[in-house]
């Protein structure tokens, strides 16, 4: 089934709601068409397409809730799925945390998340995009391995309280790893857009190839505390982990980095450098995202960190009701304000430091301090007296994004990066390159 329009979904969902005999009903109709191509060893290894549309219906009697789903949309099927969700609700134990559906919310203008050119990506486009990456590599004694994934999809919600929400979006994700054939150099690049016309796999691949060549024959330097320049993808990985941990309930329960000694939370307290400003905004031009969250709450521009202070935590509807506060829609994007400095400017301004292309295999070590470990990968360079001196062997780090943002030196230019979870366009971030002092590298890795 193709992508359904707002009118088409509304028609189906109205029928669904009309079949309800429960105390209440909420239905989600979602669909996605996607395609991908994967290559390695300078040759395409796999490619494919997938398509999925499904209707999920939630019925409730009091606090007893039942869910059922179906991927057929004739009237008989729609009624069947509603009846099944009602039967399941009657059999369910009470869920004391169940919240009745929301009334109609005000969603504001539709963000520009759907771009026609991306929706029209063909297998031929994907093959050419891969070829534009593979062919230059094979001419330069480099081996390319990459992955391009695109999607077009829609999401919609309707309930018996009158709420209706709809959004459609497109996205494309591209990553490539270029390795020098002598096995001593590796470079990587990533691109993430709603609009595929912004993607040039040849241009992106050239950057990764240059990094592969420049990173050959890396030298070992002693682990320790270094000034680092983190490219946006590296910075985003650690910042994203911090932002995903800003759950209010965990903080209130005393098991979060935002919990306070003696009880309470750090809401309203300064936790990082005052130049740090992070917010979410569905209408941001660079990283548009859906104007409603999965539970129907209207998204709006919202500060997460304002001048280094915790401005908002994420309250789900149940927890907000317990704490007599407003619920928080889960952010669909994250924007960290940047500066004007380019990576080159930051290098020029660095006496002794390390340039990091990306991090790899980041895992939580201590949720109390938000300490993470991981490694640098695919292009790590030593900076001395304002210049890149030579490539260096990769490091393992043990660092907390909270400590890191307290050691902020410079904010650089922003770049759109994927936040994981595929190319839907909803999970993207706009993150600057950052220069940080005293970043903790604890050991060396021989990995290339």
């Amino acid at each position: 089934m193709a992508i359904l329009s707002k009118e088409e979904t509304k028609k189906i969902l109205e029928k669904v709601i009309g079949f309800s005999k429960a105390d209440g009903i909420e239905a989600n109709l979602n669909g996605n068409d996607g395609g991908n191509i994967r290559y390695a060893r300078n040759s395409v290894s796999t490619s494919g397409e997938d398509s999925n549309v499904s209707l999920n219906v939630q019925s409730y009697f009091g606090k007893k809730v039942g869910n059922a789903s179906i991927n057929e949309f004739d009237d008989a099927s729609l009624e069947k799925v509603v009846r099944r969700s009602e039967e399941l609700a009657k059999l369910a134990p009470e869920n004391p945390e169940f919240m009745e559906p929301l009334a109609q919310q005000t969603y504001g203008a539709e963000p520009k998340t759907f771009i026609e050119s991306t929706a029209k990506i063909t297998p031929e486009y994907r093959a050419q995009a891969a070829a534009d990456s593979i062919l230059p590599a094979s001419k330069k004694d480099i081996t390319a391995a990459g992955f391009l994934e695109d999607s077009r999809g829609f999401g919609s919600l309707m309930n018996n309280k009158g709420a209706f929400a709809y959004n459609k979006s497109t996205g494309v994700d591209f990553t490539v790893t270029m390795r020098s054939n002598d096995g001593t150099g590796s470079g990587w690049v990533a691109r993430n857009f709603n609009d595929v016309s912004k993607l040039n796999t040849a241009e992106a691949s050239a950057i990764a190839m240059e990094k592969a060549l420049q990173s050959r024959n890396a030298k070992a330097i002693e682990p320790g505390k270094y000034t680092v320049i983190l490219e946006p993808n590296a910075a985003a990985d650690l910042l994203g982990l911090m932002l995903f941990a800003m759950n209010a309930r965990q903080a209130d329960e005393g098991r979060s980095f935002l919990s306070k000694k003696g009880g309470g939370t750090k809401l309203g307290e300064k936790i990082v450098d005052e130049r740090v400003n992070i917010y979410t905004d569905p209408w941001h031009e660079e990283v548009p995202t859906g104007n409603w969250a999965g539970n129907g709450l209207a998204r709006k521009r919202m500060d997460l960190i304002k001048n280094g202070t915790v401005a908002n935590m994420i309250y789900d509807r149940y927890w907000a009701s317990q704490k007599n506060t407003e619920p928080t829609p889960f952010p669909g994007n994250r924007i960290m304000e940047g500066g004007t400095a380019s990576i080159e400017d930051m290098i020029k301004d660095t006496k002794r430091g390390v340039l990091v292309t990306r991090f790899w295999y980041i895992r939580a070590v201590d949720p109390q301090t938000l300490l993470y470990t991981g490694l640098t990968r695919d292009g790590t360079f030593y900076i001395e007296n304002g210049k890149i001196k030579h490539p260096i062997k990769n490091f393992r780090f043990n660092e907390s994004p909270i400590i890191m943002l307290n050691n902020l030196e410079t904010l650089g230019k922003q770049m759109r990066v994927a936040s994981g979870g595929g190319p839907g366009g909803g999970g993207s971030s706009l993150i600057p390159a950052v220069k940080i002092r005293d970043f903790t590298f604890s050991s060396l890795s021989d990995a290339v």
Partner: protein
Amino acid sequence: MKRRDFVQLAGLGLGGLALPISAIGNPVSIEALLEVPLTVSQKKQLADVALNTAKSAGATYADVRIGRYLNQFINTREKRVQGIQSTESFGVGVRVIAKGTWGFASTNDVSPDGIKKATERAIAIAKANSKFQTEPVRLAPVKGYGEVTWNTPIQKNAFEVPVSEKVELLLSANAAAQNGGANFASSNLFQVNEQKYFASTDGSYIDQDIHRIWPTFTVNVIDRASGKFKSRDAMSAPMGMGYEYMIPKAEDKLATPMGMVLYRNSYDIIEDATTAARQAKEMISAKSVEPGKYDLVLEPNHLGLTIHESVGHPLELDRILGYEANYAGTSFASIEKLKSGTFNYGSKQVTIFADKTQPGSLGAVGYDDEGVQCKRWDLIKDGILVNFQAIRDQVHMLGQTESHGCCYSQSWSDVQFQRMPNVSLAPGKDPYSIDQMIKDVEKGIYIAGRGSYSIDQQRYNFQFGGTVFYEIKNGQIAGMLNDVAYQSNTQEFWNSCVKICDDRDYRLFGSFFDGKGQPSQVSAVSHGSSTARFNGVNVINTGRTI
């Protein structure tokens, strides 16, 4: 409340576990999980549609997988059920070689017409991709096995156990932890049943019924005054077993000098939750580790993850060849190192084997997802690297003629590729108990359970935490430690292995959702070992102040 009949489908989350939707399927009723939609003879007829279509369209090889993948996930928190999901995914995947190139297509239309169309799409994709092919696919020969079956030897099908019974058990575990002083307790039960029918143009028709189960929990203790919080996860292992794993048996319990009970082929979740609360409380005031070199005594439910990351992954041939370069990475292990016959992966004590036949393991099947009968083979023998893990289209690159039988796909809708078999450390040959091992250590740390883990993309440098840490001083347990992580290099670490307990201590660790590939697929794999000692490993202190 009629919990017996209760089913709640989808929507309530799984405690933050990122589960791939394609591997889960659509919500269904509990009753539907016990239905049999197709008989074996019907599956054979449908499979033949794919094979005949492929052959007549010019394919030189074809295989077809008719798969029904059933899952039930139950998650609870303190006194309430947070979610119960019962899901089914049913469909067909067809893989062909045409013009020397692979093609794959799948469909949830399990009719002769649907299968014919999917096969034609697979052929078309193979022909289109042949333009990029530099070398035609070479398959290691496999004999046709005819019509065969294989079932996980379960004693009690978890899907037949009333949901009420399973919920009661999880809520009892939460209560045990809270009665023991835990502030919060959440518990989960994952159950998987793969009903897989495989047929190929080699003449195999293989019907398999695979079961897996994983009970787990997290217990939190919070000290408001100091602002500290500590957690202790379950000491269970995911297993290739039925519900019998949930019924504790005395002979499966192993006492430790720390007063903690560890488990072999059955699990006592209530006993473990009680211990977890006690240990989490003790962690609040336990001392922070002094960084430095220690002799580590690593318990199997901890060591399994180290084996997984530092031996299992680096010895996957597709990684070594570069097929995973853009995602999981490559490997320090090379075909040259293997062929040298002298690469010292570990000390002489270290023999590590791959085994897809080990009873109770997550990876145990009769035949892999390209119809190769499963077996056991050595990867490291007396410390020397002797083999890798390879499937039919790559094993020839090692100069070998027989696939190792470790091809897997998470679902009918995804293409099968090389996945890690069970990889295990052979127990010590001489009688040696955990008590004796601890007595022999002067300055060491005993680590049990999985914790934080991270390793580089070529599998040299790693850092591991654990669930619980105990200091060993002059042959005695000297109390709990906090903030422990060890860092090492794969080859250096395995060469520091000086002692391994005997087979009385041998147990399985499991990874239920091991990710690999783009788009990513999960697989489940076990790692067996006995407690082992590693000398002079670098331990860091992970304590910080923010």
